[in-house]
């Protein structure tokens, strides 16, 4: 026992047990106080055994419904702890909610989703899937198969399989989500557009674990889904809108991670041109785009490397120049992507491209 407060409280609780009996409201209240003190000042996980005792007593005296507030409070406090500590209490809450509200209830569906998220974040993907499917099935009964609620539940399932990189499942889940969203929100809706963009990212990621033929097909599917989704966003928000820029950036980063520079190149060029118009030709927002183009071109031994490198270094120099430095808070005021100079390794990417370019250049001139 690591709690500082527990020994004194337990002495007091022992006295209450003698006086009122071990299964009494007095003992339950004292245990509840101890749980609250530990949650407020120490690690909520240390309160777990006292909570267990408290809710066992409360349940036997007043029935399962009475323990829900205690469980809700503790689970809320312990949300940052490892899921293995929270899991037994969440399972208990699910069982209680099922008993009180019935299987086909919003409360049970919500609990299944919360548990599903927990399992997904702690490596229990199979258990997460079962619970999320259970939530979908409940919502279908409550709201109808073609409803916004079911669409949101299916989206959560797709997000979960994507998050844990189960690409085959993610593809199937996104197809299911897409078909549902088309029926619920309309074929040209923003929801459908975003689902297509998510599909494109999944297809691209899936390509990295496939044989060349299948990999190429996956990239083609990614390109097609992205084109369709982006087209819808363009119509809705405008071709140079922030929404389009964000979609381009997400897709580019996926292609770059998947080593698909050729596919990323037209998107990089498009985003560069949008950013030039939106933020100016010397904006920090251009740096990562120039760096990615330089690395990609250098890797392909392309002649386009050098102009990109020159422009990238020149732009970076504006921000890092010793004579007239621009400080971080000033950079933060620049329009566009503000994290470009910090944490993204733009300088490292440019240097990497520069070294590759120098090697290619030496080869070109006979070395």
């Amino acid at each position, binding site marked *: 026992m690591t709690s500082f407060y527990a020994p004194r409280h337990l002495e007091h609780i022992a006295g209450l047990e003698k006086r009122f009996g071990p299964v009494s409201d007095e003992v339950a209240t004292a245990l509840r106080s101890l749980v609250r003190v530990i949650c407020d000042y120490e690690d909520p996980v240390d309160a777990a055994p006292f909570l267990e005792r408290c809710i066992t007593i409360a349940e036997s005296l007043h029935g399962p419904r009475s323990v829900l507030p205690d469980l809700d409070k503790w689970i809320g406090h312990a949300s940052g702890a490892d899921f293995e500590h929270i899991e037994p209490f969440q399972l208990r809450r699910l069982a209680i909610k099922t008993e009180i509200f019935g299987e086909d209830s919003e409360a049970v569906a919500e609990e299944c989703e919360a548990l599903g998220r927990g399992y997904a974040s702690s490596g229990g993907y199979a258990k997460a899937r079962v619970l999320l499917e259970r939530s979908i099935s409940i919502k279908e009964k409550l709201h109808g198969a073609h409803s916004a609620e079911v669409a949101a539940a299916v989206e959560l399932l797709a997000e979960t399989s994507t998050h844990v990189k189960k690409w085959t499942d993610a593809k199937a889940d996104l197809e299911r989500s897409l078909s549902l969203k088309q029926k619920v929100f309309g074929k040209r809706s923003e929801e459908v557009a975003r689902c297509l963009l998510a599909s494109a990212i999944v297809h691209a990621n899936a390509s990295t674990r496939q044989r060349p033929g299948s990999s190429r097909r996956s990239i083609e599917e990614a390109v097609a889904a992205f084109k369709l989704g982006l087209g819808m966003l363009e119509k809705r928000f405008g071709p140079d809108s922030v929404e389009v820029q964000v979609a381009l950036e997400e897709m580019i980063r996926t292609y770059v991670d998947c080593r698909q520079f050729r596919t990323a190149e037209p998107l990089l060029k498009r985003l560069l041109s949008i950013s030039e118009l939106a933020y100016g030709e010397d904006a920090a927002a251009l740096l990562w785009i120039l760096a990615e183009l330089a690395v990609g071109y250098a890797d392909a031994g392309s002649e386009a490397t050098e102009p990109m490198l020159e422009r990238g270094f020149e732009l970076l120099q504006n921000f890092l120049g010793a004579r007239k430095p621009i400080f971080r808070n000033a950079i933060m005021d620049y329009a566009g992507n503000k994290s470009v100079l910090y944490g993204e390794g733009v300088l490292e990417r440019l240097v990497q491209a520069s070294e590759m370019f120098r090697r290619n250049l030496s080869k070109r001139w*006979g070395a």
Partner: protein
Amino acid sequence: MTSYDTRVRKCYCCGKKSEHCELMSSNSWGSPDLDQRPPGMFRATVEDWLQECPFCGYVAPIIDKGDAKARSFVATAEFRAACLDPLADPASRRFLVRAAQDAYYGDRRSAFLNTLCAAWVADDNKEQASEALTLRLRAAAHLEGRTIKSIDTRLLLLDVLRRAQRWEAAEGLASQLAAEDLGYPFADIVAFHRGKIEARDSGRFTIARALDQAETEEEW
């Protein structure tokens, strides 16, 4: 072996279809020239590197591809002037049209390279020796007026100036490059050029020849 195929392409600018003989494969064994003209069979395919739409005059490596810039350039006076260039050889003219498009959009290096390709076409025709020299001067003119940082571009320019017999300009550039401590293989190539400039030799040499000579001199 060099192989060709005939394909129908729809022009990116005017949308009309035309037939083109396209280069499918070739080889480039050996050392390139000091202006990076490729060796082997690929060397002789220079006339087929660009296609031209017979209807609107749009020029591109593949005429069914392009961008917004290409479409707007076809409507400019610069495009019309380049199409009417008095040079007799159609292949040279194609490169010059492309160079005009590059120059119009501020891509000086590409304009320089495409004009150099036009000079290569002229090189292959003994009757056009003076045209080749003129084209090299035109290529160099694309890079005038701004400091060039690129080693690659400056090495190409050095060969262009030497072959165009612009001895003073070539020596100036060679001195500037020699002062930069460029290391192997660039320094050896610059040294080779300096020897040839001193001897007023405007001939064609390969990179391998330049590096061999440097190696021989080192052994001595």
